[in-house]
């Protein structure tokens, strides 16, 4: 590293040092320090919507089912076995033996029922809207009755809805549960200092305790990208997730660090609110998509050739669709054709579109909108950018509907069905204008009713095709996870979802001693 870079890294570090390092952290105490850019929005799974909460949630809560971190196939969790009835309307679960929550409450079928019903009735997302009733057969067995066939339930029970919370703690804490969370995960919360850090200690009765090697973890919230990179460069944190790719050259040059660039389901996108004219017009949306050179954007944001490349789909497209000319067409930059489409849509002289952007992240602020504006100009689109902080921006776009477009990201979901239904289904939570796209709800219903993978694949290919025809949102490029690990640690899990589960990491020296 050049001298100036060292001086700057030192200055950033000294700012980071103003935060006290948790007293127990370090290999000698077997406590891992993790640097993350985002503090949790909430630790109450039913109340959460942000993708950045997951590293904390995975550490605190055990889920009914889990999924293979690479293939995303369902795996046992708190439930050791499960079974769908042939008509996919009844789902049986059998829990492991002798489960307890971190507060000592028994984790039995009644507790699971209470947690699921709480999520269904009070949750901010509609993931369990399909649940009609839950019957407890005995202390380890329960039956979930569904109001329609719904095969993606396994993925949903491996997500927030399946994070079982202690009924005793919920009753005691009420709305404060998000600050005093009690689950049955591998770690328990010890302290949470807002704006600084969170300390966790190992839960000795975790059902899979042999996989957990650490005595504790300390999460440090370092929102500023150069400071996060400096913290891992200087050894203040053992592991940093969500690093800005701009800092990779400095991180890679450090022999004490291992840099990981993993493909993930997360991507950068331009969100569209279809309730504001002229975004309801599909020709305008298609023109907008054609006026973006996704490859150039990817190269500028992540580095030349980085990641899995440009995409026009929110999910990795089916093989059948990926090989189709429509797919190639959907990610092609063609401002001339875009201009023609705009003329057809009634805008021969072009139009102005308002976008809300957030400085600070990668590809969510003027770093990307400045390029997009220049790319769109030949198509006759004038991009009017307003910069705000992230929550104000989301509020203005999502709730107040002040912007047609939003520059943001998407962290992915464990099942393609969830992504498509949330964005594309008429009642999807991100389909804010409740637009009904022809053929979409029908295809989603058919997917939910079958677990025949071949049949699902055909239906997903159809959804892929309708998606690029309709362009309800503009996905731009896949965003890999950029992480850096100290060479003294190992054991991290692959993380296709872009939501790391740090609980299996360990200090190499401590394991050798054993």
């Amino acid at each position: 590293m050049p001298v100036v870079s060292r001086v700057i890294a030192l200055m950033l570090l000294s700012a980071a040092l103003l935060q006290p390092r948790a007293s127990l952290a370090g290999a000698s105490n077997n406590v891992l320090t993790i640097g993350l850019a985002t503090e949790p929005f909430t630790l109450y799974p039913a109340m959460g919507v942000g993708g950045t909460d997951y590293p904390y949630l995975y550490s605190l809560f055990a889920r009914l089912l889990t999924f293979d971190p690479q293939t995303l196939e369902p795996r046992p969790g708190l439930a050791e076995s499960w079974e769908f009835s042939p008509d996919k309307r009844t789902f049986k679960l059998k829990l492991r033996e002798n489960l307890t929550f971190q507060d000592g409450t028994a984790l039995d079928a009644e507790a699971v029922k209470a947690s699921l019903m709480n999520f269904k009735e009070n949750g901010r997302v509609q993931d369990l809207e399909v649940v009609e009733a839950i019957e407890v057969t005995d202390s380890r067995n329960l039956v979930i009755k569904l109001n329609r066939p719904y095969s993606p339930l396994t993925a949903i029970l491996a997500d927030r809805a399946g994070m079982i919370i202690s009924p005793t703690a919920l009753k005691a804490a009420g709305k404060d549960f998000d600050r005093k969370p009690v689950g049955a995960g591998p770690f328990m919360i010890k302290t949470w200092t807002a704006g600084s850090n969170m300390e966790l200690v190992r839960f000795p009765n975790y059902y899979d305790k042999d996989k957990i090697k650490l005595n504790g973890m300390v999460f440090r919230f370092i929102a500023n990208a150069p400071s996060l990179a400096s913290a891992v460069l200087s050894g203040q944190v053992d592991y940093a997730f969500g690093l800005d790719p701009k800092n990779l050259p400095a991180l890679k040059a450090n022999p004490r660090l291992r840099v990981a660039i993993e493909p993930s389901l997360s991507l950068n996108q331009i969100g569209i609110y279809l309730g504001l004219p002229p975004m309801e017009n599909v020709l305008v949306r298609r023109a907008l998509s054609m006026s973006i050179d996704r490859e150039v954007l990817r190269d500028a944001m992540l580095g030349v050739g980085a990641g899995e490349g440009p995409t026009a789909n929110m999910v990795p497209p089916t093989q059948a669709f990926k090989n189709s000319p429509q797919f190639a067409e959907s990610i092609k930059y063609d401002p001339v054709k875009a201009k023609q489409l705009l003329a057809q849509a009634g805008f021969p002289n072009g139009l102005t579109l308002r976008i809300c952007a957030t400085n600070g992240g990668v590809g969510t602020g003027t770093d990307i909108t400045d390029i997009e504006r220049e790319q769109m100009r030949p198509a006759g689109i004038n991009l009017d950018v307003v910069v705000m902080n992230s929550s104000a921006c989301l509020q203005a776009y999502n709730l107040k509907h002040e912007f047609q477009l939003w520059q943001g990201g998407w962290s992915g979901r464990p099942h393609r069905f969830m992504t498509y239904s949330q964005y594309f289904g008429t009642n999807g939570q991100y389909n804010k204008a409740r637009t009904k796209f022809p053929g979409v709800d029908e295809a989603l219903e058919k997917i939910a009713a079958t677990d025949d993978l071949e049949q699902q694949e055909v239906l997903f290919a159809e959804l892929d095709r309708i998606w690029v025809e309709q362009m309800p949102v503009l996905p731009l490029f896949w965003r890999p996870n950029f992480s850096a690990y100290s060479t003294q640690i190992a054991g991290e899990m692959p993380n296709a979802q872009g939501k790391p589960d740090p609980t299996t990491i360990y200090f190499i020296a401590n394991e050798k001693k054993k």
Partner: protein
Amino acid sequence: MERARPDFYLAAAFLALLAFVVVFGPWLAPYDPLSQNLRNPFGPPTWANWLGTDNLGRDVLTRLMIGARPALTGVLLAVATASLVGVPWGLSAGYIGGLFDNVLMRIADALLVFPGLILALVLTAVFGPSLKTSMIAIGFVFSPILARVVRSGVLVVRNRDYVQVTKLYGLSGWHRMWRHVLPNAAAPIIVQITLLMGLSLLAQIGLGFLGVGLQPPNPSWGSALAESFPYIIVSPHASLAPGIVVVLTVLSLYRIGDELRDRFTRD
């Protein structure tokens, strides 16, 4: 009359150059400030790009020249707002005195204990992010500082003979306040205004850095710093040019303020 030290002339020359760039910048700038060359991000200084290029390969010198106009007009807007609010505020409090003075000064104290930049951020959040809103907000935030200075000046001169004598001529209180009290209390106000110019430029850069100042695509000094900051570990030179321009401008404004203060004190 005693001559000023050479650094005063340097500061004055720098500000004169800046004023020239503010007026003629758009015609003098070598490139289009929005024109990108994504193959040449963070290019070093060359004959073609005297101060190098930024993260999108845009000419840094051009963007700084174009950014000078909003930077300085923003400062003038903030200072004008602070003066329009702060001068009558301090003048009336100092001249009228009593309970009226007490109430006005407690309001000033209440505003002064509030962190200025946060208040400006709140105001821009309410009225929307733009250079105009943010600079009026900053001017408003600074107005109690000016009000306090004006009041102190007025307290010194309001009972002087030349003020009292105007009463014998039957002139109105309004006339006395504006024509006889204020001009004689003006020296510290002028010095304070030059200091506020520097402070408002720094506040403007801060708000621009946070994205609530001048909105894109218009280049600004604050956004130039914000855009180069994420690269500070790998391309530290990128933050230097906008940083140095801001530092020199603020130092020059303060130097002029120092000189004015010295001259007024001597007089």
